[in-house]
């Protein structure tokens, strides 16, 4: 493989990994607080749609981003209402949210734009443009490091850099702050948090809200950064892959980064090479598509280190003596 090709595949890995990473960190906040969230997919989709729609109408991607985050937060609020306030089944709520987003986005897109369930293509300020980092062009001629800097590190939209920054930030918040201590505690032993005089409901809603914001970023990136507009079902299972990455990462921020990059790489390779051959054995593209899911099942099976979710995960908190 040529060096340039490699860089291009890695560059595309970064792009494809970013929505996964943002959604994965979103799920991390929620699940660390004991709220399972299989509605990442729906929140991303809603954010993708509304960000593209608002960006298309106003011509401002920043307004679009805000709207996307708002859409995602709204679904988060429903999830919180169902699973925290009314102590409903978190998995069922997540399923409902995914369908709600899947149906409403097309319904509204059709009603607003009448373009067959998509938004108009975004142009100019309606999209997140790639940022060229300082000296990228001048340094691009430097052997090896130049192209790496120019092709791989520079030239992404601002959300990509935000996404990468979210990893250390998440780690710091979780393990070095009061908020993080309480958030982790509420996912492990909500009764301990409650008897310590801290509101379990408040902590869990905060976590679900953060999850909403991050999913909003992920969806907005998808529709206004990675692509130029919304098309129906454009998340294409990314929410579930993010969930898979979260399990793969065993609910830890740095591991989440590596897991998402790995799954991004698989997608990038599948995208570039429809028919891959390794050591003479042809690997069908379908295998590449399915690999993240297969890997997750293998991890879940516990054959490669056990993935233990937060202890109170999925359980509504009911006061008990």
């Amino acid at each position: 493989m040529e060096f340039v090709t490699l860089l291009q595949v890695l560059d595309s890995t970064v792009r494809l990994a970013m929505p996964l990473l943002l959604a994965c960190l979103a799920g991390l906040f929620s699940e660390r607080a004991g709220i399972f969230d299989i509605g990442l997919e729906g929140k991303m989709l809603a954010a993708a749609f509304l960000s593209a729609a608002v960006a298309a109408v106003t011509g401002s991607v920043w307004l679009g981003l805000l709207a996307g985050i708002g859409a995602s937060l709204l679904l988060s609020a429903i999830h919180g209402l169902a699973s925290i306030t009314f102590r409903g089944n978190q998995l069922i709520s997540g399923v409902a949210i995914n369908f709600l987003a899947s149906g409403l986005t097309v319904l509204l897109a059709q009603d607003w734009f009448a373009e067959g369930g998509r938004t108009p293509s975004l142009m100019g300020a309606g999209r997140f443009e790639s940022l060229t980092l300082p000296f990228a062009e001048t340094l691009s001629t430097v052997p090896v490091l130049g192209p790496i800097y120019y092709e791989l590190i520079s030239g992404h939209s601002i959300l990509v850099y935000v996404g990468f920054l979210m990893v250390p930030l998440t780690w710091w918040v979780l393990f070095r702050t009061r908020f993080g201590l309480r958030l982790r505690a509420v996912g492990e032993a909500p009764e301990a948090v409650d008897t310590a005089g801290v509101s379990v409901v408040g902590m869990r809603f905060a976590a679900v809200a953060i999850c909403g914001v991050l999913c909003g970023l992920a969806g907005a990136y998808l529709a206004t950064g990675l692509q130029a507009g919304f098309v129906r079902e454009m998340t294409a299972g990314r929410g579930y892959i993010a969930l898979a990455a979260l399990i793969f990462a065993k609910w830890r921020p740095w591991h989440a980064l590596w897991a998402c990059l790995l799954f991004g790489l698989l997608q990038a390779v599948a995208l570039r090479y429809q028919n891959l051959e390794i050591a003479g054995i042809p690997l069908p593209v379908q295998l590449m598509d399915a690999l993240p899911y297969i890997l997750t099942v293998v991890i879940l099976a516990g054959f490669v280190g056990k993935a233990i979710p937060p202890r109170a995960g999925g359980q509504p908190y009911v006061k008990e003596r």
Partner: protein
Amino acid sequence: MSDIPAIELKGISKAFGPVQANRDISIRVMPGTIHGIIGENGAGKSTLMSILYGFYKADAGEIHVNGTRRDITDSQAAIAAGIGMVFQHFKLVQNFTVLENIILGAEDGPLLRPSLARARGVLKSLAEEYELSVDPDELVENLSVGHQQRVEILKALYRQADILILDEPTGVLTPAEADHLFRILDNLRREGKTILLITHKLREIMEITDTVSVMRRGQMTATVRTADTSPEELAELMVGRKVLLRVDKAPATPGRVLLEVENLRHVDAHGVERLKGVSLQLRAGEILGLAGVAGNGQSELLEVLGGYAAAKGAVRLNGQALPLAGPGSDAGARRAAGLGHVPEDRQTEGLIMPYTAWENTVFGYHRDPRYQRGLLMDNAAIRAEAADKMARYDVRPPDPDLAARNFSGGNQQKIVLAREIERDPEVLLIGQPTRGVDIGAIEFIHKEIVRLRDRGKAILLVSVELDEIFALSDRIAVIFDGQIMGERDPARTNQTELGLLMAGMTEMPDGPLVEAVDAQMAAKAAREAEHHG
């Protein structure tokens, strides 16, 4: 000592749906005293204390702390009022360190580092002041139960609690650990702290409290000075009538060996060895009581004998070897072989709570061909049989169509007992037969157990209540850390001797007892922690 009570409750009432848990309760507790609250299971003690700690909200009534009325709407408010609570089931984050658990909810600022540093210092001085030492950097899941309880007390003290509520604190402790706890409570009293001790054990009330209140069916029936009362009087106040504190039974006439357990070993799902070579013999017509603090292998012994945990070693019933793993080792096969089992926890094991009473009366025996009609179950036959059993065991209400969850604890236990005893087992395993059961049902259950013995059956009684062990057993074995520490004749032993065995010691240590017991418990916790990974 001032005249203003540290705690005064006035007219507290609380209902859960149709159940009235507390009815017009008033109580005054003076500062610097230990006040006991005693009552049967379900008398409403824990509910009352949970209201005081803001865990539940009272429907009516007032709470006064140090003379001022306080509106305690949540735990935060209780903490602010200087109240701390040690729950029966600890409220600790298992995979946090001791220090992290201490500061949780009482941090000094948005960043953890300064809070942790300050807590470390405070902890050190508290440990010296009250004999409350624990390793601040150890994960809670690696601590012994006694030490976890200390963390709970430290949590309250760190929040500068002046009033400490302890809910059934000795249920999980060895007698020596309980003694140590009482020493700590004594120290706290001396420092002017006020302590509310909830218990159902008369002995503890007599031993440590200054005053005692008795609760019955959600009401406060009396408050007296401990020095002016007796266990007999308290028991009568608790139940509302005279009670026999002992069980009437004739001396046992043990026959041939019915159950033989030899060198039983069992490793649990986490890889911890829970049974380390247990050997027992059980004869026809006798009750063998297995004493021990919860978590020392007695649950696992019942599971293995009951046929739902695999083990190594040998078990013979009537001389027949029972397979301990693989085919033929399941619970159904054990029942077929004549081994009945009243499990320790009727709510999570013995009964399916949403199932009707009649469905529950065949639970575990549902594969019996007599309940089958072709491919289907013969529900009519099961129902008829159930009505009959319920009548004979005085289950109230005698309605087979009522779901198990709608019966009281005592009546639920009678349903289980009816199911297991009516099958006429050769050997009956019975765990915590009277946990969460009112005194009326306790008497009934104890009588049934003795009657079964007198019919020449063998009974293995597992109980964490030493009083129950003494009252029923013809022979007492003590288990500690998966091993039988010894067997004693109930007529020739006493609580102190059994207490030592329960802490894994066969004789009085040379040094202070408390330290020796502490060392034993820490060593046990460390062995189990190795497998937490």
